[in-house]
Every structure is written in C-alpha cells, then in structure tokens.
C-alpha cells in the first residue's frame, strides 16, 4: 500500500513486518524516530516483540547478539557515536557469524560535534565483517531491510542497512509498504543452527589460537565473498513478489555507452540523478549507485565500468591523510583492469552540508576543465581557513 511516510516510520513498519523477536536500541539523533516508531507499534500492540531499551549502544549491540544467539530474530539501529560505541560488539557479532540486521542512520562523527548526515560512521565499520547495503531512497530503506534479514539468515552474516540521517530518516516520501503475507512468504521464520540450546549445548565464542585463527578469518572473508550472489538473489526474489528491486549489488542510470561515470552511495544518487536530468550535455554520462559496499562487488563494478574513461567517485566520508575511502578501494580494484578509467575522487556533503542539484554540473565542469583533483573535499571553501590550515 502506498503511503506518504517519514523514512523512520517506514523503516519501523518494515521492521515490524519482519517479526523480530527482540529489538534493542539506545536513542541517538537521527536514529531516534525509528526506535520511537517501533516503541509506538509495540505500545499499540501492532508489533509483538521484546523491546529492550538499553543503557547504551554498546549494550544494544550486545543484547541483539545475545538474542540472536539464543534463537530470535533481532534488530537494532544506531548512528555516529553510537556506532562507534558498538564497534567492539559489531566486530564480535560478525566473527561469531551470528545473523541480524542493524539500521545505520548515517551521521558524522565528532569532534567537532555534528548531528547531521555523512557516512563516516558506517565507513569506519567497513572492516567489521558486516554486510553493508546503502539506500538511495526510503523505498530502498524499507525493501533493503526486509531483504537484509533474508541475506543475513542465509549467509549467517550480519547486515548493516545504511540510510542517510535526516535526508532519508526525517523525510516524507510516498512509500509502498509491503503486505505482511507476502513478507512472510519472502522471509521464513528465523532459524539459526548454532543457536544456544540446552538440548545441544554448544559453546560459542571460543578462544582461537594462532594455530587456527588464520583459517577462521579466511572463512569469514570467503563467506563475505560468497554472499554476493545471495544479495543478488534476495533482490531478484524480492522483485518477483513485490515488483521492484534495488539494483542488486549496484544500480546504474544514464547512457549505457557512457565514457564518464559518477559513482556514489546513498541519497546523493538521487540528487545527482535529478541534476543529470536538469543538465543538458552532449557528453555520455552515467550514474552508478554502489548499493553493496561490503562485500565489495568487484566483478559487477568492473563490468559497469567497461568503456568508461573517467570515473568520479563521490562519497560522504574520508580517511584523513589518505583521501576517499570508496575511491581508494575502487582504484585498488581497477588496478587489474585491462583499460582502467581515470579515477577522480571527491568527498562532498560532509556533516550535513547541502548537496545542491547543480552538483552534477559542477562535477562535470571540474572534470572538463581539469580542475578536479585526485582527491578533494570538493565543496570545502578553503578561503575560510587560515593559510596554515588549508
């Protein structure tokens, strides 16, 4: 049913459709509306779940770990500092190979304190072993959340669904909320073979010595790579039932023969798409939305970049002292390509800085006049900085 809903409410409804046994969360802007809406659903009797209002994000992650290990579908959500506080547990969950879903309402990490959107938080967790799916809009946030459980429970890998804070979470969109019976068909009841069970009392979280550690880590890496077809499959199956998809591992828009491509993650994709439609250019350009950042979809990306001569990687985070995070990874991946495109990497929209519609034109202009650097915080006005800090 199509409804005009705030992103957070839509996500809350999607969570309810997945029938989680346990939800644990700690409030943090801009994730709060998701948890508040879930709490309301529980209070109104529309969602039967154990809602655990914990004393920290650290405990939120720990509670959902315990819940999933004990055999329940579990959900949590956080942002920014909260994700940082969860960090130790997030690595742990992935290492234990326990399935669950977390929504990351992307927000900048302080200091300086900033409550607005960028993707520094989820990017900081890129090595945690979680599958990361980025959402271009709120419909994708809803659909990806439902898909995330299917992926997670098939692969026994945790999934982080990333949606830009405020830009998506606090924005009203017309959203098609799936029907419960269809979701039930799509998502079988939670089953986790290694769950804690007195009838078969296994021990989870053993000490692994150097003798075995490398193999355990290899298997985790291999599991992530093997999850790629599961992610694609989940999207395809979703389309069969619900008539729409999220593009699998990545989505493309624009000229198939394009020689210039702009790749991004999250809601900027929509902004650039609108910008592209407004932009009158003879140049063949296409947009790529890298939906699945972990595991990294190397093959699909290479195929998408076939024939592209210039690639602009636009991201909402950076690794100080190196530059872009996604850009750097793509450069690394392309090093084995036959005719790799030139990669230009920009960070924009940090800490909630507005990404205007003309950003598309500005990026192409910069590419055209050669002013686009290997990496830059593209929308930073350096004149506002003292000379020595530029």
């Amino acid at each position, binding site marked *: 049913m199509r409804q005009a809903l705030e992103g957070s409410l839509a996500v809350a409804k999607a969570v309810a459709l997945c029938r989680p046994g*346990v939800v644990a969360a700690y409030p943090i802007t801009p994730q709060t509306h998701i948890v508040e809406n879930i709490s309301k659903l529980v209070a109104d009797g529309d969602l039967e779940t154990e809602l655990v209002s914990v004393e920290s994000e650290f405990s939120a992650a720990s509670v959902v770990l315990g819940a999933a290990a004990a055999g*329940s579908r579990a959900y949590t959500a956080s942002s920014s500092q909260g994700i940082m506080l969860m960090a130790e547990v997030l690595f742990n969950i992935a290492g234990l190979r326990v399935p669950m879903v977390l929504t990351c309402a992307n927000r900048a990490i302080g200091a300086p304190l900033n409550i607005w959107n960028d993707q520094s938080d989820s990017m900081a967790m890129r090595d945690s072993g979680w599958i990361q799916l980025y959402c271009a809009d709120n419909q994708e946030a809803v659909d990806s959340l439902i898909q995330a459980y299917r992926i997670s429970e098939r692969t026994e890998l945790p999934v982080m669904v990333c949606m830009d804070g405020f830009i998506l979470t606090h924005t009203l969109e017309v959203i098609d909320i799936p029907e419960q019976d269809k979701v039930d068909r799509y998502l079988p009841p939670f089953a986790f073979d290694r769950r*804690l069970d*007195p009838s078969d*009392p296994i021990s989870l979280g053993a000490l692994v010595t150097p003798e075995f550690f490398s193999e355990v880590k290899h298997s985790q890496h291999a599991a992530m790579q093997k999850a790629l077809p599961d992610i694609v499959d989940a999207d395809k199956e979703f389309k069969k039932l619900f008539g729409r998809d999220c593009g699998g591992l990545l989505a493309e828009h624009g000229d198939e023969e394009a020689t210039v491509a702009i790749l991004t993650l999250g809601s900027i994709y929509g902004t650039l798409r609108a910008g592209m439609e407004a932009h009158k250019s003879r140049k063949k350009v296409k947009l790529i939305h890298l939906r699945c950042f972990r595991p990294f979809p190397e093959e699909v990306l290479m195929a998408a970049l076939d024939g592209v001569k210039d690639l602009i990687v636009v991201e909402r985070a950076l690794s100080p002292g190196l530059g872009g995070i996604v850009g750097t990874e793509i450069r690394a991946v392309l090093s084995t390509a036959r005719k790799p495109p030139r990669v230009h990497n920009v960070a924009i929209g940090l800490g909630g800085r507005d990404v205007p519609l003309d950003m598309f034109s500005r990026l192409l202009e910069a590419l055209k006049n050669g002013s686009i650097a290997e990496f830059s915080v593209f929308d930073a006005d350096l004149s506002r900085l003292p000379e020595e800090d530029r």
Partner: protein
Amino acid sequence: MAPNASKIERLKELRDKHGRTDGSVLPDPADPPKDLRQAQPRFRGLEAGHRACQGCGEALAARLVTEAAGPDVMISNATGCLEVFTTPWPQSAWRVPWIHSLFENAAAVASGMEAALKAQGKSTKVLAFGGDGGTFDIGFQALSGMLEREHNVLYVCFDNEAYMNTGIQRSGSTPHAARTTTSPPGKARMGKRHLKKDLLSIISAHHIPYGASTSVAYPADIRRKVRRAMEIQGPTFLLVHSPCPLGWGHDGALTIEIARLAVQSGLFPLVEMERGEVTDVMPIRKPVPVANYLKAQQRFRHLFAPDDPRALQEREHLQALADYNIEIYGLYSEEADPLDTDGADTVRRGGLAN
C-alpha cells in the same frame, strides 16, 4: 500450558544427555560401566579437561554454580580466565549452552538471551558469569542496566580480586594494601591505596529481589544461594569469593583454607540482601584475626616486613575493615549456629551434615 509437567520432561531429557539419569540405579562398583564419568550422580555442567591452574578457586566455584543451576540454563560469559581456560578451540569444558562475546558485555548479552527466550516462551534460565574485573569495573554499566531492566538473569561474579587473566593487575575489587603488578609495594606505597568496592551494596541498591555473597569455601552455601536465585523471576546476583593461588600467592592445595579464613575473619562477609535490605548473614562463631588470613598469602607479605611501621598500620587497617564488617552486618554471634562459619561446612558420613 502445563509448565511443571513440561519442565520435568525437559529436565529429564537434559539429564539423560548430560548427567545422571533420574530415578536410575547407580552403577554397581563391582561391575563398573566403561565410562564412570558418565554415571556421576550429579550434573556435570563444567567438565574435566579445562586448563585452569592447579587449585583454581574460580574453576571450582564455576563448577559448583553450574552444577547447582543446571542443566536447563544458558550462560553468557565475560572475557577472563574462566572463559579462556574452558574454551580453547576446538575444545569446550561446558555442557550447557554457553557464549562468550566480550569483556564488558556479559550482562547485556545475557539480557538479549533472556529477551529472546521470553519471546520464544521458554523457561530456560539465563546465567551471566564474570570475574571481578568484568563486573566491578568494565562491565558494571551493562550489569547495572540489566538489573534495572529486571531481566530474569542470575549474574554470578567470581571474585578473585584482581585482573588475573592479564597477569594480576589491580581491580576495583582488589583489597586495600594488596600487592598486584599495578599496585606494587615500594618506598612510597604499600600496595593498593584504595578500598575494595562494596559491590554487593551497590547491586542491591538496584532494589533487586535477591543478591548475596558466598564463598568457595562453603559449597553448600553456594548451592543454596544458587537455588534460591534460580527460583526467583527477575534479576539476581551472586558474588563468589574465589581465591587465585597464582595471583594471591598461596599453594593451590590451600584454596579452601584461604577462602575460609577470609570469611571467618570478617574480611569477606557472607550476606544476603533482598530489595536493598540485608536479610541474612552467615554468623562468625570465632572471628579469626585478619593477620592469619593475610600471612598465608604472598600478596600481603609486605605487611609483615619487620622494621616497617607502615606494615603494622596497614595490618591494623585491614583488621579494622573486618571489624567494621562484623559490626555493620552483625556477623558475630554469641551462640553457635549450625549454619555459621564453623558449622556450615560440617560433614558426616554421606555428605554435609546440615
């Protein structure tokens, strides 16, 4: 739903798998079964083959707690000696479902487990195990949250009064003046400067239905308190004094002796608290001088330096702390009580007397 019938069925199923078969005849010693271990007349929650040091108080305490609580339980275990020595992959000494996540989240993981079981309508009891580091210090916040949210979890802290797993560093539980590697005695210091945190009072201030301290020197007391806690719906807490021969500097054969002296001297009072009030204590029949307890351990050896006036002062300080415990908890009783510090461990042919 008939919880009693189903529960009995379930316990029977679990016992069949992991311990004595209910109602079955014990093996004939003249014709012993091949695996006598399988026929033990008690539930073996923590199996042999774990790698604790010789005479480990914590291993013993964990075994006793698990025996008394099991088999329909699941455990969330904080990082620490207990976790390391029981589960070096591919082996595990546990026969109950067990999970170790991190140092500071045993209580939170347990909260999640309990929430899940509640959601699934199951009656399996969740236990959380932590050392004093994971309970008094780094895991305290998660524990406080668990208690406040009234999760039906029994949290057991095995208190060996320092970070033993990392090599004997001071914790919030280390007694005053004790030597650890981060509170060494020297010209300017006499061991730990600060006091042992009164955790039980803090825990009890959460207004939980039951919190108690017990000691590995009194297995019957442990069993009784575990069973008491198991019967309660809601958060419960046990602090189990568990000597560490390596960290405290005593022979592994003396673990029980040392633990007993701690209780008999008043330095480690055994009390039960309900909703913030002290409801029962183990009375001390004949208070033992604290010095008897101290001198048996290397960690207090500097308190017996012959020509150091500080040594006597600190000894007197510790004696005063014990006297304080005896006074505020009313531990000293004029009359012998069958369950006091002398009577509680009395044995007779066939087992414990009381």
